[in-house]
């Protein structure tokens, strides 16, 4: 239902305000994206916005004043007098150019002309640097070429994938089985069990974490893929069960009756009828769970740890923030690598994505 615009003028104002807000919302991401392609030498010297056309004072000429010029007196340059302070911060000369000290002790002054400029030196070195685990060459801030060890982000990417795919499919399969039984099978303790599942929706991860960690240590599950799959499966189950239940219980009853008439078993009904019918719901909750696991930091921090063989992206990047806090060329590239998957899901599956995220908002 489109609302009829009241007045032309008010719509323009609305558009302008909204565009402004959208601009503010986009700027942080653009800044990251642009910075991740800038060479290490540039990134700490000029802001990332200097890649866009902007006015900048460019030195056109230099004036050498007599070495014995007294800086406490007004200084005469090309027939006009300036104070030392003015020359320090830059001052406009009558012809429109800007005068500023190049070297105050050497008494040299730069004559700058304002002009349009763009910083367009881009590089993919940052990505090479973060993705490989091997040695690579990089031009350092002072211009020298150095050999550094890469951050091995491609391994972390692979690990994150290894964690995320089973940690999505396992809980959702388990939850869908349970949801089917809760919705359509009658058995003792059904109500009690269902109420417990719903109650567990409220439990924050932190509450369960430490006892589970103790069990994991005893079982040797710490720092293994299986361990983190089980953890994510358990923590994601209440929501997934509830989500799937609310869909499966709404399916028409006749559907099951005719299938039973044909002699189909519960398992067949489940795999041949329920799963295909529930695909849209499964897609939504899967996307939510997948992104949750992909973006998760806390569970990986507690249950996976730091060994390179299992370390995931979020851990790796958090690590880099701690150890390479000022290497913005690496940090921005690494952060962008971790965003690739969520962005792909966002643009590719937007419909399911929004629904899944809204449904997932009650996750404990």
């Amino acid at each position: 239902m489109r609302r009829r615009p009241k007045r032309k003028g008010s719509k323009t104002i609305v558009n302008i305000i909204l565009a402004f807000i959208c601009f503010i919302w986009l700027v942080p991401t653009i800044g990251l994206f642009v910075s991740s392609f800038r060479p290490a030498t540039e990134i700490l010297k000029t802001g990332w916005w200097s890649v866009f056309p902007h006015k900048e004072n460019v030195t056109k000429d230099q004036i050498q004043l007599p070495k014995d010029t007294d800086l406490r007196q007004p200084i005469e340059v090309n027939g006009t007098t300036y104070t030392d302070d003015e020359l320090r911060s830059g001052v406009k000369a009558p012809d429109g150019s800007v005068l500023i000290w190049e070297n105050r002790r050497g008494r040299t002054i730069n004559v700058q002309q304002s002009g349009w400029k763009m910083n367009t030196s881009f590089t993919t070195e940052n990505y090479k640097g973060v993705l490989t685990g091997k040695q690579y060459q990089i031009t350092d801030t002072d211009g020298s070429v150095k050999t550094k060890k890469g951050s091995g982000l491609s391994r972390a990417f692979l690990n994150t994938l290894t964690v995320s795919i089973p940690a999505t499919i396992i809980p959702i399969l388990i939850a869908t089985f349970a949801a089917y039984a809760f919705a359509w099978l009658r058995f003792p303790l059904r109500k009690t069990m269902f109420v417990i599942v719903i109650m567990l929706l409220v439990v924050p991860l932190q509450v369960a974490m430490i006892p589970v960690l103790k069990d994991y240590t005893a079982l040797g599950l710490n720092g293994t893929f299986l361990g983190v799959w089980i953890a994510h499966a358990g923590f994601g189950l209440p929501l997934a069960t509830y989500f799937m239940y609310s869909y499966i219980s709404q399916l028409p009853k006749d559907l099951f009756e005719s299938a039973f008439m044909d002699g189909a078993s519960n398992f067949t009904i489940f795999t041949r009828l329920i799963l295909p019918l529930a695909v849209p719901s499964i897609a939504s909750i899967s996307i939510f769970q997948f992104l949750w696991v992909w973006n998760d930091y806390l569970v990986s921090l507690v249950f996976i740890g730091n060994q390179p063989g299992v370390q995931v992206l979020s851990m790796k990047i958090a690590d880099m923030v701690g150890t390479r806090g000022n290497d913005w060329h690496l940090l921005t590239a690494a952060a962008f690598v971790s965003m690739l998957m969520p962005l792909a899901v966002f643009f590719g599956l937007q419909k399911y994505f929004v629904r899944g995220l809204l449904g997932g908002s009650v996750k404990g």
Partner: protein
Amino acid sequence: MITSTATATATAKAKSNFSRNLFWSILVPVLNAILHSAIFIVLRDSEINPILHAALAILWGVGGIYLIYWSLNWVVEKYSDLWRRRIQPYLFVGPAFLLLSWLLLIPTIRTLYMSFLDASSTKFVGLANYAAIFTNRLLVTALRNNLLWVLFGATACIVLGLLIAVLADRSSFERIAKAIIFLPMAISFVAAGVIWKFIYYYQPGDEQVGLLNAVVVALGGEPQAWTSMMQPWNNLFLIVILIWMQTGFAMVIFSAALKGVPEDMLEAARMDGAGEIKIFFRIIIPFIMTTILSVTTTIIVFTLKIFDVVMIMTGGQYDTEVVATQFYRQFFMYRNFGYGSTLAIVLLIAVIPVIVFNLRQMRKQGGF
């Protein structure tokens, strides 16, 4: 005579059926256990190519869970009709329930119990840990900061979300605008942390490459180290990140609710000469009040559990600690299990009423 033979045969058959079923009922789970632990150990200890390792692990994880259900169901299908009908529901629900018991239900009880024990979980101390929450400086700071997060973060998300939803509804590029605002919800807090750390970045000297400091300098101000200055107001700079990420959530839900406001109601109000602002506060807001409440509560829960942002941005330094980070610190750095569990329970207690309210709302509206 004939009947008794028949009965005897039937009994014998039932007996052999029973023993055969028992055999399978034991063998299949045992085989499952052996198979999966073997794969687990092989995968854990093998030094094969990482890509192959990842592929095998994924294959096992996904295929394994299906194999377990399929094989156990194969056993249950062998039972008599009566027993199959009795057992099968538990086969479907059982794994979920066992997993939940192990990972959530029992741990919650254990954590609750630990919150009454001392730092090393050896002596019973009663409510001493709970008292410490309100007296220990570190813990009080964490609580205060969480309050700041809820107060400023949640409010800003709601107000901005509503504002943007209303604007988008009346603009000419609704879809794109909504996508742009919603986008940050997709990325991780860790990545968002890097983005905003760069925006707040401060370096001594004239040239500021952090966006915020560059803007401040351009406006004639002094550059600042934003996340460590003016405690406790530096928390606001972290809260901005939450707002940036969560406003999209509020906006999408409000936007859907706004579409549900009946057009003729608005038309009638306009006929009566009510201005747009009056219509907004007198008609639209009351109409979507339940939605506003449920979004508010959802964001409050989310905010109460905030962890990643603080860890990445400051690591809890400069008085930015919140309950979840303090929980982590108590457990993994100070090894104070008593305080740690108590903080977790405090979090649980804070979250419960909000989620109960939310679920009720959802039920009223007919599920998701």
